[in-house]
């Protein structure tokens, strides 16, 4: 009986260096497994998300409250002068607004006439709030407070008011992680608006401070692409829906092969102070499949 008890209470007691070797082997095999086959860690992620995400959401809410109280403590004098200024602005704006309403009616009419719907006003979108950022300084990924419960899926495109922000890489029931386009490992297939030349936009950590992105492999024999050219996601991109605005060309350089060009792009999105984003809940692959099935 005593022997049996001893057997049951047998504990694995490894020396620390052996433990290190075992765990190293475990980690390396995990890395190799995800690298080689993209083995899914989704169940683990979901379990961990269940624990972590609610806390992150509440911490984020507390942060918001703090910023609200800080703002409410603003100087009274400042507020009075601001109020006066705003009153003037209201007068100006009502005038402008009247004019704009007229213009709007005209626009609507013209749109119907020309059937010119704004390209991405149609995509179904979900608004989401950023609740946490990745812990290191090397990459630029963040987590949002909406997930598969709100119809978000992997490879959904993410935009903010003015342009493309990134793409959903992982998704859980109440959260999703987004890799932004300024992330060093991101690349987007894009094209110029005026000439429809294709190029590849890559994030570059060395340019992040200037709020710029790099573009490569732009084939532009006639030298039509100049600074100020608008860049949007291309029609041949596999994961990004067509026509999302990325940024303006900042400078262009001829490559040493004399065929292609590289350069930098300025993005209109302020990635440093990004808080709210929109997730487009349609994937590029869906629209392709839909078209295929409707043709049949």
């Amino acid at each position, binding site marked *: 009986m005593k022997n049996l008890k001893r057997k049951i209470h047998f504990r694995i007691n490894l020396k620390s260096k052996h433990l*290190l070797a075992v765990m190293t082997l475990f980690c390396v095999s*995990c890395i190799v497994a*995800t690298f080689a086959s993209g083995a899914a860690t989704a169940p683990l992620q979901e379990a961990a998300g269940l624990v972590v995400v609610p806390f*992150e959401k509440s911490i984020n809410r507390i942060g918001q409250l703090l910023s609200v109280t800080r703002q409410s403590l603003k100087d009274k004098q400042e507020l009075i002068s601001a109020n006066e200024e705003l009153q003037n602005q209201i007068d100006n704006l009502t005038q402008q607004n009247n004019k704009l309403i007229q213009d709007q009616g005209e626009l609507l009419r013209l749109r119907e006439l020309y059937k010119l719907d704004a390209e991405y006003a149609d995509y179904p979108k979900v608004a989401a709030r950023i609740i946490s950022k*990745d812990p290191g300084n*090397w990459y630029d990924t963040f987590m949002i407070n909406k997930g598969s419960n709100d119809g978000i899926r992997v490879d959904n495109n993410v935009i903010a008011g003015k342009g493309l922000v990134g793409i959903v890489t992982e998704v859980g029931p109440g959260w999703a*992680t987004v890799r932004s386009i300024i992330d060093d490992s991101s690349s987007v297939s894009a094209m110029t608006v005026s000439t429809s030349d294709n190029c590849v936009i890559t994030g570059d950590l060395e340019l992040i401070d200037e709020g710029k992105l790099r573009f490569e492999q732009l084939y532009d024999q006639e030298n039509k692409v100049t600074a100020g050219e608008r860049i949007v996601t291309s029609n041949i991109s596999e994961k990004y829906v067509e026509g999302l605005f990325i940024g303006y060309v900042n400078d262009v350089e001829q490559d040493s092969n004399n065929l292609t060009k590289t350069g930098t792009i300025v993005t209109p999105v302020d990635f440093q102070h990004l808080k709210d984003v929109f997730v487009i809940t349609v994937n590029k692959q869906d629209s392709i499949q839909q078209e295929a099935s409707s043709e049949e």
Partner: protein
Amino acid sequence: MKSKIVWFITIIICFLLQCTILNLISIGSITPNLMLILTVSMGLMRGRKMGLWTGFFSGLLVDLFYGSLFGFYALIYMYIGFFSGYAHRIYYDDDIKVPMVLAAVGDILYNFAVYGLQFLLRGRLGLHTYLFRIILPEAAYTVFLTLIVYRVFRFINYRFMDIARKESESMWVIK
């Protein structure tokens, strides 16, 4: 058992703080590395094995939510925890200078590992930029944060966790 629970909760809280609050206090988009401080201080206060496990679980959390390769950060943090565990045998943990030096060295090693394995292999050669833009500022900020949080970790260790038997690992004591 109780010390294990406290230990685990500490790791999770550190991860939460790292992803939320620390981004708010970042200077020039550089965030200090709280999880590394936790790993290093656990290694210093409780020895190699504990440093190893702390590093492993901290890294695993990062991998789960933000990593592209599962197990990569776990591996790096694990080694840092393990090697800082050697300091447990040599130094007493009541001197703030030891964890500061450990955090500085650990953070620089950690960043060099990330750069070498994930950036250099993709042909990003601008080490000079990365060194002065990310690695050194992060190390400095992390050391500064160590000054504040090491006392908290030490308090948690002595107040809520079992006493780590220093003698059992010490090579100076004849068993």
